[in-house]
C-alpha cells in the first residue's frame, strides 16, 4: 500500500515539474512583448517611453538572463506568489484568478455532474431496447459531435435575440455591482442558464454513448450469459452490468472534473462569461505572461489532483485493482 502511493506520488511530482516548466516556457515563446502593449496603452511619448520601458522591465524581472528568470519563477511559486498581471496591472495574478474561479466552479461542476448522472442512466436505459437505441442513439451522436461554440451561438441567438428570455453576455447584469441581494442573485442565475445548458447538452450525448456501449459489452459478457442460463431475472443482470460499466465512466468524470478549473474556453468566450477560460483568452491577447502562467498552473494542479483522487477511488470501487496492488507489495 505504502509503496503504491510512494510510486504514484513520485510520478505525479515528475509530471508536475515537467508541466510547470512547459507552462513557463510557452508564454515566453510567443512573439511580441507585453511591455510594448503596456506602454502603448499608457499613451506615453518621447523620452518617457524609454524610462517607463526600463522601469517595467525591471519590475517584471524581464531584464535578467532567462535561466535566472526561470529560477526566480520557481522560488516565488513556492512562496505562493504568481506575479502581477500585466493586463490588469497592478492586480496580483492570484487575485485575478480567485475572482474568476467561482464562476467556473458554479458553471462546470453542476453541468458536468448532472450530464454525467443523467447521461449514464440514459445510456444504460437506451442499451436495453432496440427501438430506443435506434432512435436516441443517432441523436446522442449529433449532440456529442456538436461544437460547444456552435451550440452556444445557436442558444444565444434563439433565447437572447429571438425570444429575449435570457441575457446575452457577462456573469451578471452590467448595471449591477456584486452584492448579496435577491436581484443580484437572480441576475447571476439568468446569466448562468445558457452557458450551463450549452455545456450540459453537449456532454450529455458523450456520456450516454459511452455508457450505452459499455453496457452492451457487459451484457454480452460471459458472466451475464451464465446468469441468464441460470434463469436470473434481467434486473440482477442489468444491475451487475451497470456496476461494471460505470467504472470507466468514473475515470472520465474525474478527468472532466480536473479540467473544471480550466473553464470552458469556447463557451465562456461566446457568452463573455468571466471564468478562467475567458481570462486565458484575454491573457493571450495582451501577452500577459504571468496571468497565462497562473491560469495554466491552475489547470495543471486541477488535472493532477483529479487523477490522484481517481486512483484512490478506483481502489475502493474495483476489487481487481486492490488485488493487483496486494500482489505488488507481496
Amino acid at each position, binding site marked *: 500500500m505504502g509503496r503504491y502511493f510512494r510510486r504514484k506520488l513520485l510520478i505525479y511530482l515528475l509530471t508536475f515539474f515537467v508541466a510547470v516548466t512547459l507552462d513557463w516556457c510557452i508564454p515566453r515563446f510567443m512573439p511580441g512583448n507585453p511591455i510594448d502593449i503596456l506602454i502603448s496603452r499608457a499613451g506615453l511619448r518621447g523620452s518617457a517611453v524609454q524610462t517607463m520601458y526600463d522601469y517595467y522591465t525591471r519590475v517584471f524581472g524581464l531584464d535578467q538572463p532567462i535561466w535566472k528568470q526561470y529560477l526566480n519563477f520557481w522560488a516565488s511559486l513556492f512562496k505562493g506568489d504568481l506575479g502581477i498581471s500585466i493586463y490588469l496591472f497592478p492586480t496580483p495574478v492570484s487575485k485575478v484568478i480567485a475572482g474568476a474561479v467561482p464562476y467556473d466552479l458554479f458553471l462546470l461542476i453542476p453541468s458536468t455532474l448532472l450530464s454525467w448522472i443523467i447521461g449514464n442512466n440514459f445510456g444504460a436505459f437506451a442499451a436495453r431496447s432496440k427501438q430506443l437505441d435506434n432512435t436516441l442513439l443517432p441523436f446522442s451522436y449529433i449532440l456529442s459531435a456538436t461544437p460547444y461554440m456552435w451550440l452556444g451561438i445557436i442558444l444565444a441567438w434563439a433565447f437572447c435575440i429571438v425570444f429575449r428570455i435570457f441575457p446575452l453576455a457577462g456573469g451578471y447584469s452590467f448595471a449591477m455591482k456584486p452584492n448579496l441581494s435577491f436581484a443580484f442573485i437572480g441576475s447571476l442565475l439568468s446569466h448562468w442558464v445558457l452557458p450551463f445548458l450549452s455545456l450540459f447538452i453537449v456532454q450529455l450525448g458523450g456520456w450516454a454513448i459511452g455508457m450505452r456501449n459499455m453496457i452492451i459489452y457487459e451484457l454480452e459478457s460471459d*458472466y451475464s450469459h451464465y446468469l441468464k*442460463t*441460470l*434463469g436470473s431475472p434481467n434486473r440482477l443482470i442489468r444491475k451487475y452490468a451497470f456496476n461494471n460499466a460505470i467504472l470507466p465512466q468514473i475515470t472520465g468524470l474525474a478527468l472532466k472534473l480536473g479540467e473544471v478549473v480550466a473553464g470552458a474556453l469556447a463557451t465562456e468566450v461566446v457568452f463573455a462569461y468571466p471564468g478562467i477560460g475567458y481570462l486565458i483568452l484575454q491573457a493571450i491577447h495582451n501577452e500577459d505572461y504571468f496571468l497565462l502562467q497562473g491560469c495554466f498552473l491552475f489547470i495543471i494542479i486541477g488535472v493532477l489532483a483529479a487523477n490522484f483522487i481517481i486512483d484512490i477511488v478506483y481502489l475502493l470501487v474495483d*476489487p481487481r485493482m486492490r488485488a493487483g496492488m496486494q500482489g505488488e507489495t507481496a
Partner: protein
Amino acid sequence: MSLQVENLTVYYQTLRGEVHSLEHANFNLGDGEIMGLAGESGCGKTTLGNSLIYLAPPMKFIEGQVALDGEELPVWDIERMNEFRFKKISIIPQYAMNAMNPTRKIGKMISELLQSRKINYKELLSVIKERLDKVKLPHDVLNMYPIELSGGMKQRIVMVLSTLLNPSLLIADEITSALDVSTQKSVAEMIVKFRDCGCMKSVIFITHDVSILYQIADSIMIMYAGQLSEKASKETIIHSPLHPYTKLLISSLPKVGVKHSEKKLTGIPGTPPLLLNPPVGCRFRDRCPLAFEKCLETPPFVEIEQGHFLACWKEGAPYA
C-alpha cells in the same frame, strides 16, 4: 427416463441464410446416466446443449419436443424456461472460468443470484459449504473475488453453483478442454462423485475428447455435422462401433502399446460439410469409405439393439 428429446431441430439465423446446426435429434437419457457427447468442432454439440437450456437468437427453434422427468420443457420460450433453469436443468458453461461477476465477492454473488430466484441463501449455506468440501475448496472462497482464484478453482465453484439446487439434468459443456491432463481427470471424477451423491440426476458431458469419456461416461453419443450418428454404451462405442464415422474416430486415437513412430496414426481424410447449405442425405457421405446410392437419403437414427442407436444405411442393414 429422465430426458427425452424428440426430433429436435435448431438452426442459426445468419445474414446469409439458416445454418442447419442440429437436425432431427432423437435420444433418451436414463436416470443417473452420464452421457458423453462427442464429435469434432462445429458438429452441433454445444448447440444441442444450449438449445436444451437457453435457446436465444441467433439460434432458432424449428421443431421438436423435449421432456424432462415426464414434464414438457418449453425450450422455444425464453421466458417460460426461466422456471426450469437452475432448478431442473443447469449448465456448466464452456467459459466457466469467466462465468462470475469480477466485481462481486463470490458468496455475495451467489446470495444475490439465489435471492433473485426467491431462494434463501442462509438456508442453503450449509449445503454450499458441504459441496465446497467435496470439490476441496476452503469455505473462505465465498469471501473472495474471482480474480483471487485460479482458473481451476473458479471452474469448481461454478460446478458447485450450477448443481446447487440438485437439477435433474446437468449439461457440462467442454469443461475439461482448457485444463491440463491431471486436472482434467480430477474434474471428470468430481462429476461422477456429484452424480453418485445425488447432486444431479443425469449429465450430458460435451467434449471432443473421447478418451476422457472412457473414464467417466455410461454411454457415448457421437455427432457429425449436426446429425446424431451413433449412441451406445461406452464399451460398445469404444470396442465395437458400427457407424463408419465412429469407427474412424476411435481408430484415430492413439493406443497403448503401439509404437506410433513405426505405425503412423491415421486421421479421417476430408473435412465436414458447411452447414449453411448442407448436402442432402447422410452428411458423412463424402468422407465415408462405405457410401453407396442409398446414402443420398438421410438415414434414420434407430435402435438396432437394446440401447444401441445408429444412423447408417449400410451398417444398419443387417439389423433392419
